[in-house]
């Protein structure tokens, strides 16, 4: 169990925290945030390269806040290679085992076992300079596991890898979950977060602003920043006009949007789920409270479906299937109708 209690650190003008975080053993937690959000600073505090100004860090009930890095059971895999260039792959993996009271035979056996686990057995005699990006990261993980860490920190480990290598590395990281190891994974890639995280934290300006189940966080972003991090496109600053019949009306650039719920504020941020916006060539008789006509201004093919941008007075992004895209003969400049239920419009905190 990792318990981060109210830690803060000021570096220059940047203030990290106070940050609170609890991660149970065997859980893979992803902290998602843009560059400069304070992820790396938090990582330096957890590793012991820096000490917090305030707060405490407990790892399996032992306080580690002030311990030097070599006295903590914390392993780290960095974004770019930190393999020792003057040692072979085998010597890199053996590095934490030497001077730890292991015999030469035990070290050799452990290196072979870790290499097998991380699929680098064929690389043991190679020099780090001759390895590819994916191989480097797999060796880095093997070397870090040799330390037998209780907490494994992954600092954007997939940033420099291509798509295929990312899949391989993801599979390897998923396997670690079974070992009661606490994994804290820092990234700015929402896809990486949703694929791996048991729990997701969103970090911005030195604070964790939302934390929870990744699907829930992405489905219910607490503010526009979280929506943006989740890759959501339709979020708007709106003027709210309260009404008494249960449905509320919000205006964005004079475009009226109807939504459910109560809002006591005059202004708020609205989110419309792209997947809930239907497109049609004419105004259809449906239960949708919001029907808006507009011209197609852009479209992007996605691995599953097509993302179509319409100008309906505001830019509205809809995600439709490839089949619908073909059937509606979507092209830039074509006028189409967008319709979505009042429940598809959500008010963010």
């Amino acid at each position, binding site marked *: 169990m990792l318990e981060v209690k109210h830690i803060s650190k000021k570096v220059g003008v940047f203030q990290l925290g106070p940050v609170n975080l609890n991660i149970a053993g065997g859980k893979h937690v992803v902290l998602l945030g843009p560059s400069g959000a304070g992820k790396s600073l938090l990582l330096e505090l957890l590793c012991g*390269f820096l000490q917090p100004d305030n707060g405490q860090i407990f790892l399996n009930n032992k306080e580690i806040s002030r311990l030097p890095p*070599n006295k903590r059971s914390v392993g780290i895999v960095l974004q770019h290679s930190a393999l*020792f260039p003057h040692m072979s792959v085998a010597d890199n993996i053996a590095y*934490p085992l030497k001077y*730890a009271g292991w015999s030469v035979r035990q070290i050799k056996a452990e290196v072979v076992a870790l290499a097998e686990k991380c699929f680098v057995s064929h690389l043991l005699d190679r020099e*780090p300079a001759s390895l590819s990006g994916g191989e480097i990261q797999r060796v880095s993980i093997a070397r870090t596991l040799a330390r037998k860490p209780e907490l494994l920190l992954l600092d954007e480990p997939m940033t420099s890898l291509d798509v295929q290598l990312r899949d391989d590395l993801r599979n390897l990281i998923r396997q670690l979950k079974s070992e009661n190891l606490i994994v804290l994974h820092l990234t700015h890639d929402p896809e990486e977060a949703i694929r791996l995280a048991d729990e997701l934290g969103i970090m911005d300006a030195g604070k964790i602003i939302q934390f929870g189940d990744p699907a829930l966080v992405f489905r219910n972003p607490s503010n526009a920043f979280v929506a943006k991090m989740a890759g959501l496109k339709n979020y708007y600053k709106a003027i709210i006009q309260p009404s008494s019949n249960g449905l509320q009306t919000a205006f964005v650039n004079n475009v009226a949007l109807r939504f459910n719920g109560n809002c006591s504020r005059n202004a708020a941020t609205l989110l419309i789920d792209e997947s809930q916006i239907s497109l049609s060539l004419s105004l259809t008789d449906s239960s949708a409270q919001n029907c808006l006509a507009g011209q197609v201004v852009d479209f992007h093919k996605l691995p599953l479906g097509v993302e179509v941008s319409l100008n309906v007075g505001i830019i509205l992004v809809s995600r439709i299937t490839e089949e619908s895209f073909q059937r509606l003969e979507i092209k830039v400049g074509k006028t189409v109708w967008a319709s979505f239920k009042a429940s598809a419009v959500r008010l963010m905190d």
Partner: protein
Amino acid sequence: MKLQVKTLPLVFSLLGGLLLLFIVAPLLSLILSRSPNALFQAASEPQVTQSILLSLSVAFLATLFSGILAVPLAWMLARSKSRLKGVISGLIDLPVMIPHSAAGIAVLGMINRESVAGKIASEIGISFVDRPAGIAVAMAFVSVPFLINAARDGFAAVPLKLEKAASSLGAGSWRVFFSISLPLAWRNVLSGFVMMFARGMSEFGAVVIIAYHPLTAPVLIYDRFNAFGLKAAQEISVLFILVSIVVFVALRMIGKNTDHVRS
């Protein structure tokens, strides 16, 4: 444009060639001025061989002992974020900037028999003036900046993330230094040792002030020149230059063989 591309390397090659000629011509003309027979004769003189051996051995020991203090200081300078770093770096370069005879006077002022350091040293049986120990101090004073600067550049080039990675893998700071920092900076450190040794064994100005005797090779050359003229100084000069070249090339070769440690 085409004219520029062609003339620039040509002009630069000519200018560079002139400079090379300036360095090589006096040395070559000196070496060729003496017959091999004359050189063998000079080499068989005990005073000549002793002075060359003294220069080499004292410079070697001065470099070795200085290394024990200089390498840690170089690491500190490479890793420190202190504002004093600039001042300390400037201080280290001072012995290179000042006239070496003045450096000799300064060091002699500190280690002569009447000084505090001189008295303490003589209490434990060490005397500097006109002794090999004094020669070593003079050599070290003027040549140690070469070692510190080269080693500092070597340590600065070792990525900090490697030292951090080692420490997160359980290594304490001593182990990080000896297993990561030093092996990766070794090429620069060795190059610093070579430069310091080469500069130290050639030192004349500071050495002659502190210890005219026993005669090192550069002092013997000066002594012969003063007593017997140019020709008398030429043989030992040629011998010392040849020995220096052999030692220098040998040490460079050792340095090259250790290149693989930093890929």
